């Protein structure tokens, strides 16, 4: 079974701050990391592979990322965490892609790899859209299961997945090939093994450009993106208010007064 995992390299976003004085992003000292949700996707892919191998079946996990040349780092990390190999989609023509063009580009590359299963994180923590996974499924014409919290069963033809919804779960059975996006609850990612680190070090990561995946020029990058960012600005700043100290009973008295004033009681 061929399994692919989509990986995005993101800045440690909580450290990205907006400076309202200069109207600019402060990115000093902000490091890059694998999108946390993609770590769960990778871990699940590796677990599926290991289970299949235990049953004597062949399985292989390939990590795929679209990004600048430095995203290679994230792919090496993915190999250290259990991926067998990795492919970087990097081409100046891919730049400025919104979720439409990104899912198209990834789908073009994945189509070439012919995976039985594609794993994605439910969303990336910089863009927070969750649109790329389902987009890939449509572009590839694969079945899909978004927000997967558990894989219940898997055979050559179908996968049963438990999906997290707002008020509970839904168990669905989906035909392969399929695209799954996963939530945090699905597993606890491992730390890199020594062998994984060695593999990561010596791995040769091919770079695929638009021409290598047969991507149409008017469907990639900024050119292929229906949406355009026209303004970037700082959110309204929130200041801390009053801080009350005292005996619990006093504090509660004051709080009840406040809740009454705010019309919550």
């Amino acid at each position, binding site marked *: 079974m061929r399994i692919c995992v989509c990986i995005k390299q993101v800045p440690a976003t*909580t450290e*990205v*701050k*907006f400076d309202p004085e200069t*109207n*600019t*992003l*402060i990115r000093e000292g902000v490091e890059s990391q694998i999108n*946390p949700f993609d770590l769960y996707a990778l871990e699940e892919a590796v677990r599926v592979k290991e289970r299949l191998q235990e049953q004597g079946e062949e399985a292989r996990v390939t990590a795929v990322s679209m990004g*600048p040349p430095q995203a290679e780092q994230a792919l090496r990390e993915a190999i250290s965490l259990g991926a067998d190999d990795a492919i970087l989609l990097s081409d100046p023509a891919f730049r400025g892609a919104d*979720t*439409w063009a990104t*899912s*198209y580009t990834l789908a073009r590359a994945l189509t070439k790899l012919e995976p039985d299963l594609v794993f994605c994180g439910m969303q990336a923590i*910089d863009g927070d*859209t969750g*649109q790329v*996974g*389902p*987009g890939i499924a*449509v572009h590839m014409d694969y*079945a*899909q*299961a978004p*927000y997967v*919290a558990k894989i219940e069963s898997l055979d050559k033809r179908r996968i049963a997945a*438990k999906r*997290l*919804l*707002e*008020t*509970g*779960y*839904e*168990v669905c*059975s*989906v035909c392969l090939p399929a695209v799954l996006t996963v939530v*945090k*609850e699905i597993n606890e990612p491992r730390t890199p093994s020594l062998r994984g680190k060695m593999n990561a070090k010596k791995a040769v990561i091919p770079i695929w450009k638009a021409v290598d995946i047969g991507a149409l020029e008017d469907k990639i990058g900024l050119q292929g*993106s*229906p*949406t*355009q*960012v*026209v303004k*970037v*600005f700082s*959110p309204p700043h*929130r*200041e801390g*208010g*009053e*801080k*009350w*100290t005292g005996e*619990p009973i006093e504090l509660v008295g004051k*709080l*009840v007064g*406040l809740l009454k004033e705010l019309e*919550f009681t």
Partner: protein
Amino acid sequence: MAIRVIEDKCNGCGLCVKSCPQAAITVEDKLAIINLDLCNYCGSCVSACRLRAIAIEIEKQAKEDLGRYKGIWVFGEQFQGKIAAVVLELIGIGRRLADGRGSELAVVVLGDKLDKAASELAEYPVDKVYVYEAPELARYDGERYSRVLSDVVRELKPEILLAGATTTGRSFMSRVAVQVYSGLTADCTGLAIGKDDGLLYQTRPAYGGNVMATILCPYTRPQMATVRHKVFPVSPKRNSGAKAQIVRLNPKPQLFSSRSEILEFIEQCEATVNIVEADVIVSGGRGIQDPANFALLEELAKALGGAVGASRAAVDAGWIPYCHQVGQTGKTVCPKLYIACGISGAVQHQAGMASSETIIAINKDPDAPIFQIADFGLVGDCLEIVPLLTKKIRAMRGEV
């Protein structure tokens, strides 16, 4: 497509250098220079430049007559005939946008046995309720639903399509956007019609709420957006008693094929309400100390008619299920009142709740970061304060 620095306007101030998330800009001889190998055309520098000295030029034009697209549609998400709360919020903002644009507002509902839901929706200030009914559409199925909606979008050509940023809405709209090749903006918190161009200005948070971005979809239709819960007020019903026109559409059975089958639905968060829809959230973190103590929060939430949330620490400790988690790797909430109990308030947590209307924090540590964003901070032990508070609220109501 090109990005360039307009040399007579640039004074080399360096604001763009700071703004660039890619570190692609340098200033040499008082002139900004963009390294095209690093630039990803995100547009941060264009916004940052006070002299309008950086321009991104795209040679793009619409491939069809966009004037044929008219009207604003809201996806009427429903579950077993019950309309999702966010739909009524979308009708409110949708009405405002439709009035601003001088166009119709319609709700489109997919499902089975929708008589009640449709007539309920018709009581709101919408012009039309489009109803797609078939047994195959009884439950949301990504493939089926997106094929049906894409088909009707191509046929009836709405100019704008809005949906709630629910788990269903977010993945459903992604599929439709790809199928009709148009732009989709996720999790919007601001929507407005441009005065001059008539376009939908879609504003959304990114980078965990640290940055806001305004996004347009200029060359394709419909302009699509998913909208966060609780950002816009619920629309009142029509006061005239008049009803919107209900239009029944016949889905084409050939659109119903699907490679997915629903086996089971497991309700879990029924004891507390869905946290993204709650007006009041009582949330607990490491300071709750023991899973049993979450009962204290539940009682307070019940007394206030709210739901129980949790920090990542509490969820990772196994004290409460993941569906309660608020924050970067959990849910983003925007209630009227958020009471953070024993939550230190790491930035990852703040990313999920900082836009709440009123924040009250209870924490033993007077230096906890949560106090920096709380409107009211109580320095004390939440395990003592919370039960006292519940008791007092109940006593006030004569319940004890």
